[in-house]
């Protein structure tokens, strides 16, 4: 029988939740790395028991942990993220140029076919790669040096490269997103990059609403069977591209708010998409105090509220960009964690929800693994 494993990163450690295919009873292990911020954990598609975790602390900096046994045991691997060549500068809050400074790893994306190869998205924004299981990390400097890196400017949440999406069909193609800088695509495994922002509009955030640089892209998702179709939750607006990011159109439709952080695609229905609307960038809680996941079965524009089992009064949590994921069982489980420490799960594509846990530290990331 299949097993579903949820890798949950929180403000105070990592937790691993495991269930059989019924997904009714969950075993919980953790906190691993108690007291540390765990921005992200993710397993290798090529070897699901190979896990990587980003462990960070304002006091002690960055640690990368690796497990070879599905999270039972861990070992710290390399934690040196040195920018390639001359460090360079980017725009600072006061308009001056400021040196790039490594702060933390936001996102770890293992290669689709090599457990020892992992991409890391870091703050200040850059992408690194290891090919030796995390022992050493090298920057892919083409991203920062694509020509306009010096114009990137941190938003209030920092200048983190928080999203990395690997295209399973066009090998070597990957997408990344950076807070307050935008989205980029590479077709040569990260050597060269180009911005993919045509069609994005940010009238409240940018003096030039359709500028090439500066859009605050929160998350990008794709379905492996249709990799040229991308879905994006931007700071404001839910967007869609059908040409690999060449152009975007808005599909916010009837959402109660088009601000939000995560966006995921159903495991078996490439036109079924999930978002969690948040009232606004200055509120960071759900509209009307009602926690609602919205599902579109038409690839956007037409959205339905999923509320069964979710709090519909006095709920003021947020759901962060990395904190939503799907499993690949036939009925498609959907999972998300909140800043209030709940992890909710649905075993029926979002129709009904239950709280798997209610009192974790604030959840930063959730990744579902489906194991045979």
């Amino acid at each position, binding site marked *: 029988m299949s097993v579903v494993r949820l890798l949950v990163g929180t403000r105070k450690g990592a937790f691993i939740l495991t269930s059989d295919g019924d997904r009714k009873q969950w075993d919980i292990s953790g906190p691993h790395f108690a007291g540390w911020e765990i921005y992200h954990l993710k397993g290798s598609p090529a070897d699901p028991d190979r896990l990587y975790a980003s462990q960070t602390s304002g*006091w*002690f*900096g960055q*640690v990368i942990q690796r497990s070879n046994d599905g999270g039972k045991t861990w070992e710290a691997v390399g*934690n*040196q993220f*040195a920018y390639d060549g001359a460090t360079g500068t980017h725009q600072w809050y006061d308009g001056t140029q400021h040196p790039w400074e490594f702060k933390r790893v936001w996102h770890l994306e293992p290669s689709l076919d090599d457990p020892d190869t992992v991409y890391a998205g870091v703050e200040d924004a850059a992408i690194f790669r290891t090919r030796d299981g995390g022992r050493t990390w090298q920057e892919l400097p083409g991203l920062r040096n694509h020509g306009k890196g010096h114009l990137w400017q941190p938003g209030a949440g920092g200048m983190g490269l928080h999203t990395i999406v690997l295209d399973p069909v066009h090998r070597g193609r990957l997408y990344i997103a950076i807070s307050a800088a935008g989205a980029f695509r590479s077709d040569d495994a990260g050597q060269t990059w180009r911005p993919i922002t045509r069609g994005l509009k940010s009238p409240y955030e940018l003096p030039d609403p359709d500028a090439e640089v500066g859009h605050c892209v929160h998350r990008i998702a794709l379905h492996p069977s249709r990799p040229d179709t991308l879905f994006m939750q931007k700071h404001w607006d839910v967007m869609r591209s059908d040409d690999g990011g060449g152009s975007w159109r808005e599909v916010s439709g009837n959402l109660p708010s088009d601000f939000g952080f995560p966006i995921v695609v159903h495991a078996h229905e490439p036109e079924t998409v999930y978002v969690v609307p948040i009232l606004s960038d200055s509120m960071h809680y759900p509209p009307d105090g009602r926690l609602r996941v919205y599902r579109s079965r038409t690839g956007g524009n037409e959205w339905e509220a999923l509320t069964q089992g979710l709090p519909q009064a006095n709920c003021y949590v947020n759901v962060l960009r990395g904190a939503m994921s799907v499993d690949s069982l036939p009925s498609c489980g959907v999972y998300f964690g909140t800043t209030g420490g709940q992890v909710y799960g649905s075993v029926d594509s979002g129709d009904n929800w239950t709280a798997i846990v209610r009192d974790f530290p604030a959840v930063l990331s959730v990744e579902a693994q489906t194991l045979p």
Partner: protein
Amino acid sequence: MIRIVLPLHLRHLARVEGEVRLDVQGPATVSSVLDALEGRFPVLRGTLRDHASRKRRPFIRFFACEQDLSHDPSDAPLPDAVLRGDDPLLIVGAMAGG
């Protein structure tokens, strides 16, 4: 022999309990003690001082003999009581305030 007290999270990271005791080659200074500490526990590299610049991370403090050594030159000799092993070198995560 130098006695070192690590903060809780770094004891967990290094998988040690209680004090760490180290023999240091040459004059014992904060810098040479950290070199020896990182040599014995490579997992601590980058957690106390920057990999490249070797500067103390902003919220790390070094205390000994009721003194804050954090702002002293890292190659200054440690107090005699630390050299004799009477007092430990305390490596501390600065208080967060609040």
